[in-house]
């Protein structure tokens, strides 16, 4: 990794003062340590806010408020119990057992893949809102190959996998090409293509080719056994692909000429063009790869979890991926960590609802949102936690509406 910390202002050549304010607005690779601190602090703050929500959604605790001034101890006891039970369930549900860890990984993997796509686009200066649409097209193609075609095991998986990835890639490339050729803003085109993909899926689910035989429900068959990712224990092996994808994206961005071009275009498209790079090609390629990664995420739903094609097959993965990429500061490692965190919250949330405190699973959504909110406002976190501003609060920046 090119990321390393540098003491501010140390070892400067004497006659070349580095202006501190210049340093702060650079998305510098020199700042992950403060970033981790802020993120951890944001997580803690989110848990504190979450604790209040737990307290005030617990029936027993609220009832104890009625006689708070006669016997306040009850309130504190019930509140403490509710918080403890909820968070303990959240923790054990996420990492407390082999089954829990497997749940966490399976939920994290598609988030990581789609998140990597969003991160890659960010680094190229594109705000890819379209992971959801790209994912849906991926599920349609992977699903179709998975449940209609008959092939030997292994080969079937491979073909279905490729179909899903290509579907996502094509859907992403449309936005990239439109941006490159006509200048259409990718935020608009990806959002619109999300609608198109959603509606396309709904339409297809009314057709015989997709519907379960003898059923009127908008639901397909699950993929054939031969097209499924093999399992190790309770975890499907598609999860490994997420790790490979992360390493691949890291290599692409940091070690390859293509990534060099993408990052240059993302940081200064004019300078990139003057240096002989094709800005349009970088945009198209970035969206194509982003789409492919979303397509890969799609195969994990269809070929890993063995979900049927339904309107909800992708859940909100494509949108959560944006949050994951933002939280991960558009770096591959950050995206993996953020994806794991969100996967853990999703897996643990179910356990939490089942716990004695019966805290609704939506609390995890609140926690996710709060973490990102606090991370987006590092000054707020530093203020609350009395942390020193080390100038490392770099945030992800995508281009606005200008170009």
């Amino acid at each position, binding site marked *: 990794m090119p990321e390393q910390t540098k003491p501010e202002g140390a070892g400067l050549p004497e006659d070349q003062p580095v202006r501190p304010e210049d340093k702060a607005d650079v998305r510098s690779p020199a700042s992950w340590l403060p970033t981790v601190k802020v993120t951890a602090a944001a997580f803690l703050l989110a848990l504190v806010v979450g604790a209040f929500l737990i307290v005030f959604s617990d029936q027993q605790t609220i009832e104890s408020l009625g006689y708070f001034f006669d016997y306040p101890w009850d309130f504190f006891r019930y509140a403490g119990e509710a918080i403890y039970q909820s968070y303990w369930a959240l923790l054990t549900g996420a990492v407390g057992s082999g089954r829990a860890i497997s749940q966490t990984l399976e939920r994290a993997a598609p988030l990581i893949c789609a998140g990597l796509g969003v991160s890659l686009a960010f680094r190229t200066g594109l705000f890819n809102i379209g992971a959801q649409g790209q994912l849906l097209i991926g599920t349609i193609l992977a699903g179709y190959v998975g449940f209609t075609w008959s092939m030997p095991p292994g080969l079937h998986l491979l073909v279905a996998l490729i179909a899903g990835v290509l579907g996502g890639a094509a859907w992403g490339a449309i936005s990239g090409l439109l941006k490159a050729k006509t200048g259409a803003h990718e935020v608009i085109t990806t959002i619109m293509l999300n609608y198109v993909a959603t509606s396309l899926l709904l339409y297809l689910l009314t057709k015989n080719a997709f519907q379960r035989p003898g059923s009127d429900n908008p639901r397909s068959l699950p993929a054939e056994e031969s097209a499924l990712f093999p399992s190790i224990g309770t975890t499907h092996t598609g999860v490994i692909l997420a790790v490979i994808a992360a390493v691949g994206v890291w290599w692409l961005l940091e070690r390859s000429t293509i990534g060099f071009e993408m990052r240059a275009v993302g940081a*200064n498209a004019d300078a*990139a063009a003057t240096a002989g790079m*094709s800005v349009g090609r970088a945009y198209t390629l970035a969206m194509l790869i982003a789409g492919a990664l979303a397509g890969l995420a799609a195969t994990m739903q269809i070929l890993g979890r063995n979900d049927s094609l339904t309107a909800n097959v992708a859940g909100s993965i494509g949108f959560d991926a944006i949050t994951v990429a933002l939280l991960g500061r558009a770096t591959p490692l950050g995206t993996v960590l953020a994806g794991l965190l969100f996967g853990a919250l999703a897996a643990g949330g179910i356990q939490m609802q089942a716990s004695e405190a019966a805290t609704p699973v939506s609390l995890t959504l609140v926690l996710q949102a709060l973490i990102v909110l606090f991370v987006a406002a590092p000054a707020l976190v530093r203020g609350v936690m009395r942390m020193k501003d080390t100038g490392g609060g770099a945030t992800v920046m995508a281009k606005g509406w200008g170009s």
Partner: protein
Amino acid sequence: MELEMRGLTKRFGSFTANDDISLTIEPGEIHCLLGDNGAGKNKLMNMLYGLLEPTAGEVRLDGEPVTFATPGDAIEAGIGMVHQHFMLVPVFTVAENVMLGREQTRGLGVLDREKAAALVRELSERYRLAVDPHALVEDLPVGVQQRVEIIKALANEAKVLILDEPTAVLTPQEIDELMDIMRSLKEQGTSIVFITHKLREVKAIGDRITVIRRGKVVGTAPPSTSETELAEMMVGRAVKLTVDKEPARPGDVVMEAKDVTVIDPRGHTVVKGVSFEARAGEVLGIAGVQGNGQTELIKSLLGVIRPDAGRILVDGQDISAHGPRESLETGIGYIPEDRSHDGYVGAFTVRENLVLDLYRNDEFSKGFALRLDNIAKNAAARIEEFDIRTEDMDTPVSSLSGGNQQKVVVARELSRPLKVLVASQPTRGVDVGSIEFIHKRIITERDQGTAVVIVSTELDEIFALADRIAVMYDGRIVGIVSPDIAREDIGLMMAGAVGPADVAKEGTDA
């Protein structure tokens, strides 16, 4: 009003931007603050204007100690500042901009535009600052926008006016106009702090000159001090203001432009049938006031924009349909006009920027994989060779000083064999020491047999480098002259006042 700084110090961590600076601005004087980029002039002024809090020291107005927590406090106390980058709302009129922040209303919150316009008119008459109060700021030329900034400061009853590098964006004529304005302000009792790194200007207008180097006051000098002495104070060592060069030995024509015409996106023809020849081993200087088509001409030479008519030949081969990539491969080196805009990627490290247009070479990549070892070796070699002052090769270029940023660009472009070097404003916003260095390298490149085309709006630079001078006005080359032409004559050609026929003219192919 007398403004006094006593022992002003500003530290950022271990770095001292201003060290114990004491300075007095007398009422009604033009006090020049001279210093290279990064010397600490801006930090000092920002402390004065309430944008930065001093680490130590104090500011006194007429002997009374004052502290400014915000620019609002400074304005209240009678200090006005015109920033290098204007703080105007482009879609507002002049009057609206002037009343911004201190809007006057007529009952019910209706803005009193007439009152604001009257104020603008009064100020522009009193100080001879011709401005139409109802013009939209975005329609005004840069020089006039600057006047609006000055009026804004005067409307706040500024008694001390700080002008931060005010001439950097101006044409020679606009600079003269600005100096007239400064004189007229001074006559009416306003003191002016004039920040610059241009020696000629401080001598022309200053009453006293304070030189700052590395955050310290080096000394105060009268305007009669010679430019060489001032430059020495500024840089800290003897500086050559002229470039040592042998007479050129021009060879064959390498680059040839034939009737190049460029139409900008708004449909204006900005380059109108420009033809020139650039020969090996010779520097062709293209002089002209900013905005006479040089920007577009230069971009069309590299293929960043395509000429709408005409041809560009390199070694007889037509490259007018080429994009930047092919042109670079043909052997064109390109130093763009505005380095931060298209010369480097600010967020990229020095190492990465040094191969920004070279990473495709076999030396720096193999297939799709970057060859990091060679890229690092290259960076180490260039940093050494071009004396790029940077913490290390992984420092983002945006945190280097202007001169060193430019050295990164120049080092990159000169690090491969070139047929033609096209350089636009190669030393704009660059410190004196780096100017000397860059000029020397350009002449070295010429002596190696490269054809060099330099575009500059600074006549000093043109005279220092060029073996032949083409003067551009209104999209045309109005004449190609020898560098021994008188400064005034070339000034007239640049202003479009005289055609080439009226000026002693050398043959086009001399």
